[in-house]
């Protein structure tokens, strides 16, 4: 299995390595222990890390909505520019984030991706305003921000997607 948007298990990184010979110089010879530890930590973190995080200002750009920050585990070359990701402001306090059906892995091959779960939080409101991220439908995650009067309001939200 290849990398993001796949979540490769430890086995995808190859077998447990062994030293061909004991490392002669610790800061010049990469040892099997170092490689195995690196693979273990990387594989483990790769299972739990979000696939994408967003900071979206629902009131930005004169009320049209504006992406302030975005990051994708499957885009370590940072080719997806701000403004290129599909986010639609359905109305006041109602935003839908839609992923493509596939993204290229480290070899350039398209790999299917479907969002599974998410967390969201208002970044510039009070304790009377709440962001709710809905269960994904297909490639999309909808986030709504409401106040305690059940009124939709525009706020800046942080959204993490797995």
């Amino acid at each position, binding site marked *: 299995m290849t*990398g*993001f948007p796949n979540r490769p298990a430890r086995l995808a990184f190859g077998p447990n390595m062994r030293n061909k010979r004991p490392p002669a110089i610790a800061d010049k010879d990469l040892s099997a222990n170092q490689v195995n530890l690196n693979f273990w930590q990387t594989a483990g973190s790769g299972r739990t890390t979000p696939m994408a995080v967003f*900071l979206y200002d629902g009131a930005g750009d004169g009320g049209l909505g504006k992406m302030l920050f975005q990051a994708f585990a499957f885009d370590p070359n940072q080719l997806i520019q701000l403004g290129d990701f599909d986010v639609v402001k359905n109305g006041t306090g109602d935003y839908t984030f839609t992923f493509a059906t596939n993204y290229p892995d*480290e070899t350039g091959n398209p790999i299917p991706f479907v969002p599974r779960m998410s967390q969201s939080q208002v970044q510039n409101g*009070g304790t009377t305003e709440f962001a709710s991220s809905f269960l994904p439908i297909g490639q999309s995650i909808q986030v709504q921000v409401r106040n305690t009067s059940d009124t939709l309001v525009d706020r800046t939200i*942080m959204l993490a997607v797995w």
Partner: protein
Amino acid sequence: MGWPLRIGRVNFGPTMKDERPPANTLQEFTARQANLSFWQAAGMGLVSPKAVLRIDYRSGVDPTILDAHFAWDNVIYQDLAPLEVPAGMVSIGVGDGDVEIEFETDVPGCPDEDGIQEDVPLVFTGGIVMPNLVAGNILFAFSKFALSDPQNMSIESRDSGGSAAIPFTLTLW
């Protein structure tokens, strides 16, 4: 240069190629393994939280950090001593009813790829606060998070019964 900076794949060097086919896959580190590892590490470096903290916060008691994990403080991991403020954080306290946390503006002594130690700016973009109800509390809890600048933040964590101080887990990007 890595944490607390977010670096891209390009910082890990070019896509590697095998000089020759590996003779022994148990003893020879291949280009495929290197490229996969770099891709994953670079990708995670863009989306991973920079800090995760568990904070005890109750009425009449100053907030205290029970557990803290910082991506840039990874040389040696040690549990915090009681009331200890971890390196990288300036202060944690209560102001205007909110928990206010201030971080340093930079992390000193970060080694770059040449081993040279230098100060690296510490910048946060946002956070998610999850109130952690104490066992037996049957109410629901909610929270507020706000950054006044990249190092200063305020958090509210309260329950529906009106208690204004509920312990919480804070995840920072």
